[in-house]
């Protein structure tokens, strides 16, 4: 018993010091002087715009990476093809490469001297220091999560159920919608949540390519940084707390909707 208690104490203590204490501190600092300053920051035009930019980038990146992640997982688990190992490794690239490096590579690619930059500028499309660059950076850094969640679930699922569905008359499309997708739905949902969290929190790559123009290309995370640079600590805390709250709401929603029928 004492050993089990010790293990529990170490695990909990670690979580408290590493995870909870910083979060608690930011909540404390935010509401230290009441709700009034918090409200002032959040109702500010630039703050609202920064959240809009973050949410738009997230709203584009999440569905795209969900579809791509499921397709990739299906290809990696079910198909045999040349370069499969390479694809599998490439999916993890955004986890391995620092976001700042991602931002820099995007910058170079879409800059006037990059491969894509001149052509796009010739057609009047502004990528860098504008919404497209923010969206591209957000998509890049959040690629792996859905695929990484779905791959092990698909492996465990095997393909017998789908073969059974085939012999029962289901076409490939019907098998996907009625057998495969319902079977991997929790992995997909979990992947979507991780992707969403990653998109909302993205800083490094976006900071490099967005130009951080206040009221235009500022995102929630770059706004926090700018506020701290300008000694507007209270404002930075308020924005940070909202980001935290969104993450907490997402996590709670996930816990509440966890599957019941199959675990019974």
């Amino acid at each position: 018993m004492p050993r089990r208690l010790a293990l529990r104490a170490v695990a909990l203590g670690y979580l408290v010091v590493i995870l909870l204490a910083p979060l608690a501190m930011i909540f404390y600092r935010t509401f230290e002087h009441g709700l009034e300053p918090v409200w002032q920051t959040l109702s500010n035009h630039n703050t609202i715009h920064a959240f809009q930019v973050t949410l738009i980038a997230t709203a584009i990146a999440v569905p795209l990476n969900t579809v791509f992640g499921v397709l990739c997982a299906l290809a990696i688990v079910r198909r045999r093809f040349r370069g499969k190992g390479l694809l599998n490794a490439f999916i993890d690239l955004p986890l391995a490469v620092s976001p700042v490096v991602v931002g820099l590579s995007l910058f170079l690619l879409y800059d006037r001297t990059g491969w894509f930059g001149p052509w796009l500028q010739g057609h009047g499309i502004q990528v860098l220091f504008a919404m497209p660059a923010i969206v591209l950076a957000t998509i890049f850094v959040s690629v792996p999560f859905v695929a990484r969640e779905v791959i092990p679930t698909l492996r465990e699922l095997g393909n017998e159920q789908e073969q059974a569905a085939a012999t029962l008359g289901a076409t490939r499309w019907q098998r996907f919608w009625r057998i495969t997708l319902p079977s991997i739905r929790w992995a997909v949902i979990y992947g979507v949540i991780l992707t969403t969290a990653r998109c909302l929190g993205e800083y490094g790559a976006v900071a490099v390519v967005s130009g951080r123009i206040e009221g235009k290309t500022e995102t929630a995370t770059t706004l926090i940084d700018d506020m701290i640079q300008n000694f507007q600590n209270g404002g930075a805390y308020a924005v940070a707390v909202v980001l935290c709250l969104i993450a907490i709401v997402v996590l709670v929603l996930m816990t509440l909707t966890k599957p019941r029928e199959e675990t019974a």
Partner: protein
Amino acid sequence: MSIEIRNVTKRFGSFLALDDVSLEIPEGSLTAVLGPSGSGKSTLLRIVAGLERPDSGEILLAGEDATRVAPQRRDVGFVFQHYAAFKHMTVRDNVGFALSIRKRPKQEIRERVDELLELVQLQGFADRYPSRLSGGQRQRMALARALAAKPQVLLLDEPFGALDARVRAELRDWLRRLHEEVHVTTVFVTHDQEEAMEVSDRVAVLDHGQLEQVGSPAELYDRPASEFVLRFLGDAFRLGDRFVRPHEIVLDRFPSDGAVEVEVERIVVVGADVRIDLVDGSGERMLARLRRENVDQLELERGEIVWATADQTHRLVPAEPPA
């Protein structure tokens, strides 16, 4: 619907799973494909279902070439060894799947599912999830599901392999009766010779991807075409220049034409029968199964030398010369 398998060959990498197999399965029959693991029997069944494609050869269903037809368009029901239950659906939705795919009216699906659940004795289980059924119940559900759309052919891949002995015996019985009621052309794969002999009216024996023999269970047992079939279908021993089954051995105290001198190693009484372990001069062991009264008459004792012949009323297989 009849099934015709013509010169089917299938490789997995360098492994030859099926080697030029041809087999005809008449309409309405209950055929067992029997073989040890790795003999290619499951592969053959999966090729008939369209779940695998042969490297060469053809599959004809009701006389028409179906080699390249997708599984969903072959009109076959398939039962997997590990049930392949749709875990996220209730028993009712599992069984009704084929009908809902065919967009039949809800009322019709309901009635048909109820009818099938009664057939497989799962009436009270319609709203359960498969995880809350026993192995035997899951397999019965899988059978009902396979039968829902009234397939022309029912294929079962080691259907009872994952079940315990008692449930297995029950389901065998049940499959036999089901076939008498429904009369759908049925092929089932098994490695269990007893199961094959008991359930089916025709048995096809496969070994190393090759078809060894096809026939009724009695034909195979009495007139095996090869040493492999002989040995696979039950105990068989070499007696002189022939093979013989345990119950065909006759023992005598005096030599006669073709008799072989053997030593009695052990005598075990099993009910009305006696099992006797014998060994001949060359060290070849065999097992004889005699009626108790015969043994009593002979007053047989351990360590004695007697003469063994084969009961001439039983057929014998000429043995190939020993290698």
